[in-house]
């Protein structure tokens, strides 16, 4: 058991090759190579393109992280890597590469859960968790509400999207409005110039929905409603107020996300809400969550935008936590598990 374990973390579950290095809760390096530009023309991540890019980027990104942190591989206490969930071929590059590193250095390796890593990364910014927390994880690949009692033991899923992920809705609406991929940043920017003048539907919020889907999300209907609204304007030959549509759409997403997250905190009697994932970089979501949480005496923990999106630091942060907690390392034969269960922190 180590107080402040020095851990290198590797993340390759989607289109970012991330390598982070942490000492305890201190971030030493967070190197990133992204293949997002190669995917932009397809309007979404192409798995094989992502996997090829990871293979090329992994070693240079590892070396950059080591340089930035000013540490040597020999100094590490452990290596951590995202074992799942994510794109199977993309995950495998990181997992096999991390195992190679572990073999060469004879260091222990921890295969960890990507979603739990999104929660753990906040410890780098706001220190260790002091009690139970509710985590809202929102990105292009996931939209989940979890209860976190002990990050080294496991998390309890409370709800998730039943169709599109929140970030996916951003991507699709951005495309509809002629904005580039990924859609989160351009919508955030446009929304700041507009006003939420259109009341778009809030998925799974009717009294009936709340009975069976209290902590679940649905963004597919919202995306369709925005498409219909825009098409109707275009049919009339009237201009589409892009900034107002972006603001209205963003308002609807953030409204549902924060409403359900606060409800989950109150339901569980938990005082802390952690927000992570790429959509947590959205300025309106951050502001609305703070505002609503404050009314109920709930503390919001959300790391700076760069730590919200996929990165290696979050994997290193979770790895460091597991080493400090005395968790046993993974065996060398653990698989890259594209559908890894949320209740597993590591493999």
């Amino acid at each position, binding site marked *: 058991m180590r107080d402040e374990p020095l851990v290198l973390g590797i993340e390759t*579950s*989607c289109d970012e090759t991330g390598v982070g290095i942490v000492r305890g809760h201190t971030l030493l390096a967070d190197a990133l190579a992204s293949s997002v530009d190669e995917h932009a023309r*397809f*309007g*979404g*991540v*192409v*798995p*094989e393109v992502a*996997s*090829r890019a*990871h*293979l090329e980027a*992994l*070693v240079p990104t*590892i070396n950059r992280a080591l340089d930035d942190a000013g540490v040597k591989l020999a100094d590490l206490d452990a290596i951590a890597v995202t074992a*799942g*969930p*994510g794109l*199977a*071929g*993309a995950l*495998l590059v990181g*997992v*096999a*590469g*991390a*195992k*190679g*590193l572990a*073999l*060469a*250095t004879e260091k222990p390796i921890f295969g960890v*859960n*990507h*979603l739990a890593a999104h929660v753990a990364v906040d410890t780098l910014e706001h220190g260790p968790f002091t009690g139970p927390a509710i985590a809202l994880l929102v990105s*292009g*690949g*996931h*939209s989940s509400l979890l209860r976190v009692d002990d990050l080294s033991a496991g998390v309890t899923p409370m709800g*998730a*999207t039943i169709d*599109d*992920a929140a*970030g*996916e809705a951003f*991507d699709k609406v951005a495309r509809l409005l002629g904005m580039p991929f*990924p859609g989160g940043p351009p919508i955030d920017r446009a929304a700041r110039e507009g006003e939420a003048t259109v009341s778009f539907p809030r998925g799974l919020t009717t009294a009936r929905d709340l009975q069976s889907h209290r902590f679940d999300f649905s963004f597919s209907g919202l995306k369709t409603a925005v498409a219909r609204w825009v098409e109707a304007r275009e049919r009339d030959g009237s201009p589409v107020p892009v900034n107002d549509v972006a603001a209205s759409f963003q308002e609807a997403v953030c409204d549902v996300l924060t409403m359900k997250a606060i409800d989950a905190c109150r339901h569980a009697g938990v005082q802390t809400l952690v927000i992570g994932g790429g959509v947590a970089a959205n300025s309106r979501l951050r502001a609305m969550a703070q505002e609503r949480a404050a009314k109920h005496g709930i503390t919001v923990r959300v790391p700076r935008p760069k730590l919200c999106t996929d990165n290696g630091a979050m994997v290193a942060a979770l790895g460091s936590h597991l080493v400090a907690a005395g968790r046993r390392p993974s*065996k*060398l*034969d*653990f*698989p*890259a*598990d*594209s*559908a*890894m*269960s*949320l209740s597993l922190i590591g493999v």
Partner: protein
Amino acid sequence: MLVLVLDTATPAITAAVADLGDGGIELRAQRVTVDGRAHGELLAPSIDAVLTEAGVKPFDLSAIVVGVGPGPFTGLRAGLVTAATMSSALGIPAYGVCTLDALGAATVGTVLVATDARRREIYWAVYRDGLPGTPPKVAKPAEVAIAIASEGVLRAVGEGAEKYAELLGVSAEAPSFPPPIEFARLAADRVRAKAPSEPLTPLYLRRPDAVEPATRKPALAAGER
């Protein structure tokens, strides 16, 4: 000089430790496990096993030799990325060997070398007395039969040749998978000359399937629910 040999370009997950002495090349340990779906799981334990069996520490290695394909993408990358991270971590060079070259190296006469490319296709090349006579390609067995008609091919080796022997019109012989020692042989000159480390460029031979605008949904699976 001790070298670690890796290849994951076929269903055979291959790891070996070879000793390049003045007298010749000797295999100190090898593991060849045929499982087309478990490259990511089985390669690292195989490496661990051959190092242990050979009584070799990672820092005793002088080089890593790895099959660069052609091979199905996901499995192929497992070997390449492992070789890349190990070589970088140990500060030793990595050398690539074409997997078909290793399979054809010990053959005599004019021989078709073919591995399974899945999707009813094969990776193939013609070898003359162990040396490549044509560049590696990917094609349907019936197309390969036409392409080799004028090459004077009498025999074939490799799992791809075994699987499609009828369509190819050539009888298939052993080996089904590349013998580990051939990778060491094919890289021996570079190892002995301490040649600079090589970029390990995979021989994909196929372009990625990237025509449909896919949705950005990396993890919408059981793991999310």
